[in-house]
């Protein structure tokens, strides 16, 4: 297990270098003068221009700039937002919990529904439930998120009036947010109705964001289960007198989960991409919306830093998934 971890961590390094190079190149490859881009639309005086050029190190050779940039990253220096004048990292840390909360809820929902649905479909292969599920999965997979999110808003917020349209919390509530997770903070606040409000704000964005991963997980679970159900050890479990629930839900599923966990891990990247749209549509104050807003504001320091941080998050999640994969697949754990 330890050597597996070390080997896995070693692959982290080239990926990290690749990501920093892309983030580093990003600003320099944009058409136009990077200083002017960084300064935004307001324009700068000649002295200010020189000052900025020095501040950003553009008077240095490129390799020097890159090394300074990487050293800065290790000191937590990802630049400063032009519009808020706050360090990019601070802004990220403040907004990140909102995205995590939404993303976690979406992935939990997708997993909790997708895995059982896939199992039931596989066990009832070719029957009505299977066909209905696979058709819905295809629809869910191909549906554009923004269209689906707007449809949800129109039906549940508009016509039915069940859920709020945007934000994370009703305006009548105000409390400290020590964890940044509204579900937890609202409970900690002790204000009656705050948790309910947090949940009702969360429901629609979660559904919108969970739809694609749900379809992917259900399909992957089904196909992995179909493969596993024909295995000899499933017959052995039945020969031991195990109930169908135990045969399918323990003996078969445990093996089928191995590819499913990979898919769940891979969908984190998709999820973050989906979060950009979902957060924008639901005015969810997370990093997705932050990135979009920053692009519109031409706050390129934020975009650059945000890109790097999002890439890091994806890498770390994939690392966690790999370790998890080792735990459910004994053949890898030994290696």
């Amino acid at each position: 297990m330890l050597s597996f971890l070390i080997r896995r961590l070693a692959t982290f390094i080239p990926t990290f270098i690749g990501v920093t190079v892309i983030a580093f190149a990003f600003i320099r490859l944009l058409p136009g003068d990077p200083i002017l881009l960084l300064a935004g639309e307001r324009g700068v005086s000649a002295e200010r221009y020189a000052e900025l050029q020095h501040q950003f190190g553009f008077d240095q050779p490129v390799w020097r700039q890159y090394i300074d940039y990487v050293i800065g990253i290790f000191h937590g220096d990802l630049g400063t937002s032009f519009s808020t004048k706050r360090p990019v990292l601070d802004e990220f840390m403040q907004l990140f919990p909102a995205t995590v909360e939404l993303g976690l809820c979406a992935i939990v929902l997708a997993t909790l529904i997708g895995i059982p649905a896939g199992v039931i479909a596989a066990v009832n292969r070719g029957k009505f439930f299977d066909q209905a599920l696979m058709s819905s999965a295809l629809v869910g997979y191909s549906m554009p998120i923004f269209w689906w999110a707007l449809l949800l808003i129109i039906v549940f917020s508009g016509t039915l009036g069940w859920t709020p349209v945007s934000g994370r919390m009703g305006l009548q509530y105000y409390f400290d947010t020590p964890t940044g997770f509204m579900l937890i903070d609202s409970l900690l606040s002790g204000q009656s109705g705050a948790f309910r409000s947090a949940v009702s704000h969360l429901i629609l964005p979660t559904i919108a964001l969970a739809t694609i991963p749900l379809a992917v997980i259900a399909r992957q679970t089904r196909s992995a289960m179909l493969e596993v159900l024909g295995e000899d050890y499933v017959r052995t479990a039945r020969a031991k007198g195990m109930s169908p629930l135990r045969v399918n839900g323990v003996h078969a599923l445990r093996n089928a989960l191995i590819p499913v966990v990979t898919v769940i891990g891979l969908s984190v990247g998709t999820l973050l991409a989906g979060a950009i749209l979902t957060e924008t549509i639901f005015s969810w104050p997370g990093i997705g919306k932050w990135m979009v807003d920053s692009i519109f504001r031409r706050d390129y320091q934020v975009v650059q830093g945000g890109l790097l941080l999002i890439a890091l998050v994806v890498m770390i999640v994939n690392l966690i998934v790999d370790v998890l994969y080792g735990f459910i697949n004994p053949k890898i754990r030994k290696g």
Partner: protein
Amino acid sequence: MALLEIRNLSVDFATHSGQFRAVDGVDVTVDEGDLLAIVGESGSGKSVSMLALMGLLPWTATVTADKLEFDGQDLRTISARARRRIVGKDISMIFQEPMSSLNPAFTIGWQIKESLRKHTDMTRSQRQDRAVELMRQVGIPAPEKRLQAYPHQLSGGMSQRAMIAMALANKPKLLIADEPTTALDVTIQAQILELLTGLQQETGMALVLITHDMGVVAETVQRVQVQYAGQRVELQEVGGLFQNPHHPYTAALLAALPERATEKRLPTIPGVVPGQFDRPAGCLFSPRCSFADARCIAQRPSPAGPELGRALCHYPLIDGQPTGKESAA
């Protein structure tokens, strides 16, 4: 009363090209402590008939029988739940591929103890003790350590031993071993067979041994049931079978042995077992039988009496000579 009694068992599979009869009117009788071998070429329905007994066939299979009784219980009318209390406890089965028959995601110990948890009310520590005892019984060294191993860490022979330990967990009255050594190295094969027959003597359970290995049949088995194309064609004590086979198929099997019973694999007879589309109307062996005549091709034989090994033949052999031909002609 017999422990296991199967009368006129048939199994049909629904396939894309229609119904396929894999087992055709087979009888099996096993007494307590009995050791029965079932031999026959590939595709003769040996596995399918035993899987039908265990209730392990896929939903495409239709099982019919005049009698399907184990230990006084009618398995045809029993509920699925009640059957699961018998299967894995009083009847267990081990399979041809030990490596793939163990679940790769769980330890050997977990898999053995799961059987104990399902069928007994032992405590956790009793289950651990029993598992160690079982591992010892099947000759696995360092049992405590091996219980924590995953299947991929065991060799084929060790895996089959672990499978046997699992099958013995609840002291079954009947163990069905479906070609338990075919997938193993030759040197290991003998060990596993010795283990199985030894355990059978030791525990007094009945053992049904499905095998291709005529040598094993000659040495260890009491009765032999020969199957062909889904039918039982002969049933004899092992001595009689080797000396005086009554069915031409059995005779051909034995004649094809270069030195009787020294060849490990089942010898080959010209021709193949009929499949779904070339099933003869009369005797199923007629296309390959050297004694076949017009009657054989047109008319299905019915089994002879016990003195002729219940041979499913119009002209059962005695000392290699067909009988009753004159009267038929």
